[in-house]
């Protein structure tokens, strides 16, 4: 089987942790606006992007995710004032660290998506799905069982 054919067969599974106040509302807006985004995305609602612990991301990869998105409010807009600023440091560090232990950084993305950015939500999800489709399945962190 050629690489191209393999890539076509492969349907990535992508977990999107979305903050309740901005990005999850953004996803809602995408829905009510009837904008389509790939069915590969599994949205998990969290109170804030800073609620997302690195453990959540690692566990998602262990149990079959090929990519993970963390989405939160734009800097300055956090419902809890500073959650996304903390998240910014945490995931900047984590992404570099995953790359260091040999995991493609492209598998973890962080985006600021506001409640009014329905089309942006759809676009971000479309883009990461396309990227992961090219990158292929995550085999490095997946549990072998």
């Amino acid at each position, binding site marked *: 089987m050629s690489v191209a054919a393999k890539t076509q067969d492969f349907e990535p599974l992508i977990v999107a942790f979305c903050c309740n106040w901005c990005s999850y509302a953004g996803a809602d807006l995408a829905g009510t606006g009837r904008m389509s985004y790939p069915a590969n995305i599994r949205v998990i609602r969290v109170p804030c992007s800073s609620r997302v612990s690195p453990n959540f991301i690692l*566990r998602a990869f262990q149990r079959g995710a090929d990519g993970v998105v963390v989405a939160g409010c734009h800097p300055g807009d956090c419902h809890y004032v500073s959650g996304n600023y*903390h998240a910014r440091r945490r995931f*900047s560090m984590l*992404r570099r660290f995953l790359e260091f*232990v040999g995991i493609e950084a492209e598998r973890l*993305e962080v985006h600021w998506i506001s409640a009014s950015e329905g089309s942006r939500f759809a676009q971000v999800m479309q883009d990461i799905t396309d990227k992961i489709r090219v990158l292929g399945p995550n085999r490095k*962190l997946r549990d*072998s069982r």
Partner: protein
Amino acid sequence: MKEIMQKMRAEAARVLSSGEVDLVLGWEKGDLWWQSYPVFIENEKKAELLTWDLFCVPNLAKYLLEEIWHKKRVALFFKGCDALGFNQLMQDKRVDREKAFIFAVPCSGLVDPQKVERAGLHQGLLRVERLGDELTFVYKDREKKTAAPWFYYDKCLTCRYPNPVVFDFMLGEPVPVNPRERFTAVKELEGQNVDARFQYWQRQFSRCIRCFACRNVCPACSCRECIFDLTSPRWLGKATELSENQFYHITRAFHMAGRCVDCGECARVCPVQIPLTSLNRKLIKDIDELYGPYDAGVDPQKVPPLVTFNPGDPAAFLESKGV
């Protein structure tokens, strides 16, 4: 070193007999040449057990977490690395500065028994002594002299704080600070491609037997309940399957981000020699690059970099490729 050892014993006896402290934590010599282990002395007559030699490597600070000492005042001896660990415990609000009476022991490096063994010098070895920068290996019927740094722990060769940063009483003179570059191994790995790095770490992590020595020895690992011990939810499965090992090591190191004092104890105790310092130092290096230089354990009043922020922080997760 003998002079400092005499002072240790005298000071220990003094603070115990005067009632200034209830307990002295130091090191005692074992039967074999590399054995110098923590000892707990409550009686001044036992102060003679104290030793200070080239193998006094265990950090004593973490024993302060034990509940039985909470109500007591404890005197303890710190090398430079130990003092950083103590400050980290202070920053994490796990120990009380007032309850500790700290003797500082400047340290110019300790001997790694594995290096002695690799050099084939261990058979029949009785003890190792140091004079200046020269080591003397003493056997039953002969002696061998050699340059000391050859046998120091790697962590000692890169040590940036050989003189304790926190103490009440200094034993001996401060030693010169002359660390080797500590990020060499990290930079080397950064230079490889992502798959080569994966293979490297896969090999390391697959050796892990999950003995938890790296966690238990770490002065920054002081949670009352550790995520790895939780049964509900069970974050870490007990099978040493590779992805579980990856989960353990990535999480352990990341939890230390901004709090690791780079004392190197985790790598020292690892029975299968996983280069844990490279994980820790990658995080230290990235913090330095992204948020400015920060040395954990130097100033317990400072806020660790991953529990604070600056509105102007870079969004480094937008890098097309992590550095």
